[in-house]
């Protein structure tokens, strides 16, 4: 078993670290967080240096890349600029959906823009009454005169929608008996008449806006449909696995950043006449944190390797997401404990990582949904 990265991956990660040192130093990320601003400058720098084209077909100006390489990018982003890592991870699912299901015209327009530094396409699924139970969707799309789609409804937790040019919007045909066979996917320009977007205040992710979206008689041309009518659910499910894995990888980077802060602090902070790192209770915490980081990274390496080798990861990816998002928060929480009062102060990045990583156990499918995906699959293996 060879755990080494390829030379190309190592060079790419060095290049990315240097880019982040230049364009997204910690002080700048903290400032953006405080001002609740989208990281436009680092995002453009990522585009200018080809990172946003990773995994996108060369036909649209991208550079083919495997899942592991994309996870490595998210890991490094997560460590040095977590909000940018989140935005990168959120973009993957909509990019993949568009690559797989959109028309050539839609692909050229949207993917070409993303590669040049436009924000990712936001994903519009959740509604006030429909989150993980997407069958409860109410937003409707009605074809009028075989020319125009008329869309009405409301979306919630639609992250990035107030900065994005497009929302990949899920609608439901209320007449379809099986809700999973009555959903459709649309590419909705956010400046379309009838679209109203309000950012929602939240605990973390201050540089990654999450919004509610009101859709009031929104008219879209027939060509705005992505893929096939009523096949939206299948299209949506096709790429959740990679999104969850890449977002998980960004959490590993965040945990490592917190661990390094804690270990450095343990060496410096003197109490009772010696550095607190001399105390075994602190050492125990640091060792447990280091083990979790090792486990988390190995976990996403393996799932990425499976995906790159076209192996199914139905329950494996859910278990990895569950473990990594929980363990990364635990590591950051322990780092806060080691830093004590300092870790709780707004002046230190630990509090930001703590606020930002907590939601990773909710977004992209809650812990409980991950159990729900993995549990039945595990049992199925032992059914006779």
């Amino acid at each position: 078993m060879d755990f080494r990265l390829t030379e190309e991956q190592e060079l790419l990660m060095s290049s990315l670290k240097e880019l982040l040192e230049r364009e997204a130093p910690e002080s700048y990320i903290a400032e953006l967080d405080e001002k609740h601003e989208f990281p436009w400058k680092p995002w453009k720098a990522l585009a200018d240096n080809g990172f946003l084209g990773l995994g996108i077909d060369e036909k649209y100006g991208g550079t083919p890349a495997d899942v592991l390489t994309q996870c490595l990018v998210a890991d490094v982003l997560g460590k040095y600029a977590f909000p940018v890592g989140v935005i990168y991870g959120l973009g993957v699912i909509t990019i993949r959906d568009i690559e797989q299901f959109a028309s050539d015209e839609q692909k050229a327009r949207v993917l070409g823009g993303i590669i040049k530094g436009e924000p990712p396409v936001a994903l519009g699924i959740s509604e006030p009454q429909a989150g993980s139970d997407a069958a409860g969707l109410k937003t409707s799309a009605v074809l009028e005169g075989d020319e125009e789609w008329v869309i009405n409804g409301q979306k919630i937790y639609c992250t990035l929608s107030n900065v994005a040019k497009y929302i990949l919007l899920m609608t439901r045909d209320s007449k379809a008996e099986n809700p999973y066979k009555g959903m459709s996917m649309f590419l909705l320009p956010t400046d379309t008449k009838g679209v109203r977007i309000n950012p929602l205040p939240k605990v973390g992710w201050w540089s990654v806006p999450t919004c509610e979206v009101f859709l009031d008689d929104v008219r879209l041309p027939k060509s705005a449909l992505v893929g096939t009518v009523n096949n939206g659910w299948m299209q949506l499910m096709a790429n959740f696995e990679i999104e969850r894995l890449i977002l998980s990888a960004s959490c590993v980077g965040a945990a490592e950043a917190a661990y390094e802060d804690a270990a450095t602090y343990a060496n410096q902070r003197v109490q009772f006449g010696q550095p607190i790192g001399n105390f075994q209770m602190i050492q125990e915490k640091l060792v447990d944190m280091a083990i979790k980081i090792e486990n988390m990274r190995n976990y996403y390496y393996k799932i990425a390797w499976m995906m790159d080798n076209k192996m199914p990861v139905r329950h494996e990816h859910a278990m990895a997401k569950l473990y990594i998002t929980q363990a990364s928060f635990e590591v950051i929480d322990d780092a806060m404990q080691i830093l004590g009062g300092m870790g709780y102060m707004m002046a230190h990045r630990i509090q930001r990582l703590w606020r930002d990583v907590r939601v990773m156990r909710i977004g992209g499918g809650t812990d409980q949904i991950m159990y729900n995906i993995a549990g039945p699959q595990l049992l199925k293996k032992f059914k006779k």
Partner: protein
Amino acid sequence: MNIIVCYKLVPDPEDVVAKPDGSISLDQAEWIISDYDLMAIEAAVQLVEANGGKVMALSVGPSQLANSKAKKDVLSRGPDELYLVVDDGLRDADTSLTARTLAAAVAKLGEFDLILTGEGSADLYFQQVGMQLGELLGLPTFNAISKVEWSGGKLAVERSLEDEVEALEVPAPAVLAVTTDINQPRLPSMKEILKAGKKPVVEWTLGDLAVQDGLAQRVEVLSVRSPKQVNRKQIRIEGKPEEAAQALIGHLSKEGVL
């Protein structure tokens, strides 16, 4: 225009270990392109982008140079071709041997309009190789170059001195050592990294070159030692400024600093 850009691989400063006896260990060090040379590479690539031609990267040194990742690293930053003189006889080469080896390699490269170097190396920083190379080749040679333009077969350069900036017209070919503020080097993208593995690389040994005076070195290094680490004395001086100043002078005198 054809440009030769010289670079050096140096141990990553983050990996250099100072041992308790003061000796320096490079055993775990990754070898990376000297920071100062990244600006020379970028300047060469920008000139060729603006005027056409090609960039030939050139380096001489021990076996680390032949490392496949190190080769891709330099080529991913824009040069079209890579020429290396890899020979363990060049380990710990002084500036003279380095410059003479570079001169012998340049003689094999054919026509060129310009040779660029960094202002010094990140490990030793003697700032001599570029100047010696120019002298050996008998070419116009300048250091402290903060701007280079190419027009009508001549080089228009700016040379940043302590109190002034000289604007000079230099006939080509020439050897120029560039400053760190001449540009901000680009970062390699995945496309460039993938392309790097496909670019031509030529490797020579000292046996392939006619190096003037062979392996003779002009400088003998007796030892390299890190400064002795001393624990902080944790002396806190309090009181009125005059008294504190007197106390400080007293401590410094006691330590033999004053």
